[in-house]
């Protein structure tokens, strides 16, 4: 199949619904053939952004380009209808036509564009084969399972080689088990058809696992864009840091202290050594540290934090330990099963934090204070 995919360039996009700003001044460039994931909590504006790219919503201002073509330019009065954008979209509820057979469903976009009949048959069958639903072509949607319907929706999207694929939480309606396989399938499809995919989800695990790059949105703002590793290891603010990662990052209030020209962060009276330079040494800071970067010690040492075990969750490959510090801060730590055997609820233990992996955030605005290492 020839490659018709393009990049998507979004400039200064804003969408207002009455008095609410759903999307605020987004600038984003999605590269050709990349699988870009837009992730964020409910109501963050990710679906709105997607619908705006599709042309289903007209933004309040901004520009959208598909490759070289301007499809939305509010300031200059340009707006291409969704019908004419040559995009495909897969919806959370699949949105396949219940009154048509699977074949007719997949053929619909081609028939609408008045393609040649013989050509249509060929392409529908090829696409159905690729998605392993060729045997279902004569069935109607209500006879299919959820997973099968989802593949019909995918087939309908793939069959016409659009410029960009838009996916709006396509896996949210599937059972947890099916979801893992479906995720892999989407990645596989992406590799085989070499398309630009913009994928929206609220599930950060999904985002991390399939995205070439991720964009995190919160309350209409694009907080950070980057590859999964970068987002995970270099979150730009407390929101991103707390959103990505499961179990989520722990946050402690504290201060930066300099002693003998070494930087430490201090929580209560414990000092933890830092290995990086930071932008500012003054003011209140928030220390972020992931569950896997905290060690539980059964006996206290100097510069460790005392805490009480409140809950122990056994998830098989590891234990998630919930702890409460004397000032009521909650912390979460993951330990391997072997160590968990020695721990019990209400036990008092001590926490050692890995300073090399800590993140320091400005308490006033949540921004990560880390200087980039040269």
């Amino acid at each position, binding site marked *: 199949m020839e490659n018709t995919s393009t990049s998507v360039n979004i400039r200064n996009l804003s969408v207002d619904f009455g008095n609410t700003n759903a999307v605020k001044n987004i600038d984003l460039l999605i590269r050709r053939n990349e699988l870009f994931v837009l992730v964020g909590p409910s109501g963050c504006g990710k679906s709105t952004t997607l619908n705006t790219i599709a042309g289903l919503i007209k933004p309040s201002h901004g520009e959208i380009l598909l490759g070289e073509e301007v499809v939305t330019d509010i300031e200059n009065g340009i707006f291409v209808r*969704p*019908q004419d954008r040559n995009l495909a979209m897969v919806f959370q509820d699949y949105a396949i036509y219940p009154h048509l057979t699977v074949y007719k469903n997949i053929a*619909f*976009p081609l028939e609408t564009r008045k393609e040649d009949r013989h050509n249509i048959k060929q392409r529908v069958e090829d696409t159905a084969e690729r998605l392993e639903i060729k045997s279902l072509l004569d069935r109607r949607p209500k006879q299919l399972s959820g997973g099968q319907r989802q593949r019909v929706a995918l087939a*309908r999207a793939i069959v016409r080689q659009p410029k960009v694929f838009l996916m709006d939480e396509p896996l949210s309606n599937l059972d947890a088990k099916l979801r893992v396989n479906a995720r892999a399938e989407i990645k596989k499809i992406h590799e085989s058809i070499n398309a630009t995919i913009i994928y929206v989800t609220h599930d950060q695990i999904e985002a991390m696992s399939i995205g070439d790059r991720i964009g995190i949105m919160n309350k209409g703002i694009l907080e950070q864009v980057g590859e999964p590793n970068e987002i995970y290891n270099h979150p730009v603010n407390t929101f991103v840091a707390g959103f990505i990662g499961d179990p989520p990052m722990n946050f402690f209030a504290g201060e930066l202290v300099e002693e003998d020209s070494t930087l430490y962060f201090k929580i209560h009276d414990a000092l933890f050594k830092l290995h990086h330079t930071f932008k500012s040494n003054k003011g209140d800071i928030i220390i972020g540290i992931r569950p896997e970067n905290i060690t539980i010690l059964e006996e206290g040492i100097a510069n460790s934090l005392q805490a009480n075990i409140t809950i122990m969750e056994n998830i098989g490959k590891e234990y998630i330990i919930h702890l409460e510090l004397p000032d009521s801060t909650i912390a979460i730590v993951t330990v391997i099963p072997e160590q968990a055997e020695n721990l019990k609820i209400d036990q008092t233990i001590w926490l050692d934090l890995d300073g090399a992996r800590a993140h320091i955030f400005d308490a006033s605005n949540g921004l990560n204070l880390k200087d980039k290492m040269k």
Partner: protein
Amino acid sequence: MLMPAIALVGYFVYVSIIWNLVVSVSDWKGLRPSYNFSGFGEYLDLMDDTKFRTSLTNNIMLILLFVPMSLVLGLFMAILLDQHLKYEGFFRTIFLLPFTLSFVVTAYLWRWMYNPKQGVINMLLRNSGLGFLAQDWVTNPDLVMYSIVFALLWQFSGYVMLIFLAGIRSIPETQINAAKLDGASGFYLYRRVIIPQIKSSSFTAFVILMVFALKAFDFIFILTGGGPGYSSEILSLTMYEEAFAITNFTTGSAIATIMFFLVMLIVLPYLHITYRRKN
């Protein structure tokens, strides 16, 4: 707790229907009740009676004109209102207004509209130089049924529109969006995606209109009384005249029984199809 409902409906509907049937085959004459079985003579007599035959023919004509036109007009209006209008609520309220009026009111309104000498329609035509188009809308036997159908369209179109609009709106928006992205717009979108999915609404509207056309009484009674002559006479009118004007109870109830069976012919399949799904 269910008893009052069962008792009242059971008596007033089912017992009454059977009673009605019994009367139609009894030898009751005049005002003194009499319930001896006297055969199906009434029914046979009706078949030969010209008034009844005209009545039946007119009723069929009413159905054939009124039902399809209402469906088309109602669907058209529903599609118009589906266009994400700013004042949709306003239009909906106006269009539905006639249906909330009593048929007595509608009959009066249209008597005034159709009056040949001073009526609204003819005066409008004359005052705009189209006086030659003025007609004897309800006094011309050839025109009267059409005039009746037109007035009933006026009354019912908003209701049919409402039914279709509800059906159209029940299609999930994501499906419409998917169709748009697939390239469908305007008329094509309606033809291939929306209209095929409103079968149950269409069926419901169809049944309701059919049943109405069969039992319509109030409007025609007041507008024309069946006239001129018998040109707008329909079954319900004939039934009323026989039973309550001439006090031929047996004839009246025979006509009523025929009406009942005609209506059931449509309603029973409808109920069967609609409620079979529940099990």
